[in-house]
């Protein structure tokens, strides 16, 4: 009797073990794409992954912006409970994790797929490379140098749509009269910091690099940088009375025509698309505050934490291949509003704003994102400074002096 039971148990165990051996894996993927347009886009990746492989995409969306999600993601990796794949921004955010040996080396996949040739611009792959090894898959190019304007708002105020920041500034009193907020913005430091970056890059590429890359003291104290802080002062008046926190609520004000403009990354386009609005007809986009059109090539990348399980590792590598495939690139980026990372895909369906971005990219007007030039520490301090500046009556001189100090002390 006893042996029989044992035998049955053994058979049962073997039967249970079988499906595990047939290497279909559940991959938990964490990301912070939770607004309507974003969630729509990430769905495309999950669909492609499950259609092309036997594995399962377990969605681990973390609500809130990157500032909420990133600590969760990093503490899980450091704390020994890694997810199978995760979104992070290119740049210095993951460098220490890679140096600590916590991330999966993707070099063999990258060589097999000839990533060095297909990924455009090259800086994206460089951002994933540490000591000649590749550790992440660049997914899209996000640029923050955009200003979105609502045609309906200008119509209501009886003025022509504006083509640059100066015109918007001039139109502000009339917009106020018509009960329209000239500039919509979420009252969070990271959104307000975009204004600084964009005024700098919109003035000229040289100024932008002299500030963030060279950290040149003379440039930092020059009139050009001081002028940027004067513009910020004007922006503070134009945004008074906004009273929203989240970027997509600010975008909603532009979509509804309650506000005239918003300075926000290209992901705002996903919200316009979700609301059924068309670029050129319902809304317009300006690069670099209507000044010099340069775009940064920051963006999202997928990192794969090292997991000690051969099946999971194999599945992680398959996911990496799916993410970089032309079909996923097109499907995802069309919904997301971002630009694809490979130059060889067909984007005939792209709208005028995405075309504008692609043209800028093709013309080589590409700048390195601030995430790659200064440390997260400095980025955070600039955000704190802007939160303070926009939330109080801090003088432009004080704000400028504090900004100079942050940049000069950054290592």
């Amino acid at each position, binding site marked *: 009797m006893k042996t029989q039971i044992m035998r049955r148990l053994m058979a049962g165990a073997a039967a249970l073990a079988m499906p595990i051996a047939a290497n279909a894996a559940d991959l938990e993927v964490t990301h912070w794409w939770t607004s309507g347009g974003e969630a729509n886009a990430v769905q495309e990746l999950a669909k492609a992954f499950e259609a092309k492989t036997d594995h399962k995409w377990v969605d681990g969306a973390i609500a809130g912006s990157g*500032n909420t999600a990133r*600590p969760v993601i990093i503490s899980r990796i450091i704390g020994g409970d890694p997810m199978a794949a995760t979104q992070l921004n290119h740049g210095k955010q993951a460098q220490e994790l890679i140096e600590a040996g916590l991330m999966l080396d993707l070099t063999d996949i990258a060589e097999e797929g000839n990533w060095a040739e297909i990924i455009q611009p090259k800086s994206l792959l460089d951002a994933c490379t540490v000591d000649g090894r590749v550790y992440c898959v660049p997914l899209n190019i996000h640029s923050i140098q955009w200003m979105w304007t609502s045609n309906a708002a200008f119509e209501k105020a009886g003025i022509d749509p504006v083509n640059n920041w100066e015109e918007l500034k001039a139109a502000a009193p009339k917009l106020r009269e018509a009960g329209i907020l000239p500039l919509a913005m979420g009252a969070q430091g990271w959104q307000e910091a975009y204004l600084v970056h964009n005024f700098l890059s919109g003035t000229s590429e040289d100024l932008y690099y002299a500030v963030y890359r060279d950290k040149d003291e003379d440039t930092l104290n020059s009139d050009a940088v001081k002028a940027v802080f004067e513009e910020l002062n004007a922006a503070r008046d134009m945004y008074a009375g906004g009273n929203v*926190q989240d970027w997509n609520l600010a975008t909603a004000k532009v979509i509804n025509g309650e506000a005239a403009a918003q300075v926000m990354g290209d992901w705002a386009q996903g919200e316009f698309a979700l609301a059924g609005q068309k670029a050129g007809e319902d809304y317009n986009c300006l690069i670099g505050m209507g000044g010099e059109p340069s775009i940064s090539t920051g963006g999202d990348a997928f990192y794969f934490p090292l997991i000690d399980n051969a099946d999971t590792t194999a599945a992680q590598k398959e996911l990496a291949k799916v993410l970089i495939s032309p079909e996923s690139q097109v499907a995802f980026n069309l919904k997301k509003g971002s630009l694809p990372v490979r130059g060889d895909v067909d984007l005939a369906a792209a709208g005028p704003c995405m075309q504008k971005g692609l043209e800028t990219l093709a013309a080589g007007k590409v700048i390195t994102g601030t995430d790659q030039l200064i440390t997260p*520490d400095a980025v*955070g*301090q600039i955000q*704190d400074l802007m*939160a*303070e500046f926009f939330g*109080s009556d801090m003088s432009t001189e004080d704000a400028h002096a504090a900004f100079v100090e942050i940049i000069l002390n950054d290592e």
Partner: protein
Amino acid sequence: MSVTDHARAPARRPRRLISNPMAKIAALPMIMTALVIFIGCSLWTVVHSFTKSKLLPSTQFVGFDQYERLWGTRRWLASVENIAIYGVVALVFSLVLGFVIAALMDQKVRAEGAFRTIILFPYSLSFIVTGLVWQWILNPDFGVQGIVRGWGWESFTFDPLHNPDTVLAAMLMAGLWQGTGLVAVILLAALRGVDEDIWKASRVDGVPAWKTYIFVVIPILRPAFMTATVLIATGIVKLYDLVVALTNGGPGIASEMPAKYVYDAMFNKQNLGQGFAASTMMLVSVLLILIPWAIFEFGGKKRG
């Protein structure tokens, strides 16, 4: 203090360490936890606050650099100022309001159980929920201002959350609403322990009730006040979730708090050293208050 006490004490002392070994063994895990987790980790944090740790802890020592930067940062200075104001006002108001509520409920009111439940109820909500509720109440479009304007008083303005000068008052409102009930219930329980004869005696002597409360009852309630004070004080030092839910530190940095600075430095700015320095300052300030108080309260005299 009798003669026998003195005579017995020296004889008992040597046996103390080994007496009742089972109880000591049972307590060992807790003792280890206290040593390793509370003291060990605190020391580790203090040591690393003198390093250049970024995303991961490092042992590259930089002296007092992190502290210099900390005390040169406007956001930290604002946080310290905010918690000082919030702390003092919250402490005073919750004790005073709590005592008044407790004294009123002690007047043998009808349906006291119902009142007690209503007053304690906010304490059962987390700070996150409290913060969200008050964010809605104080929101100018949907909350009090919106409702009063809806009644026809068009010029009515009540928007404390978006004004740097009043945002702390709004936070106090939410904090007191949540925390006063507990103080009231603790003090009410203590009031019930006050001997009825004291009241009778003071009535016979013709002492007014308010004088009896201040000069007789409050001194008797001292232990209960101490318990309430410690509970409120710990709540103030760790204040984090209420800020995050109610204002997220805004407008600007007008409602930032030290605990939020620590979190942001460690996890958003990926600067552990800076976060450790800030949390060490929090620890130091707690010790500065706690040690003199502990000496005053427990030092010197033995009770029982």
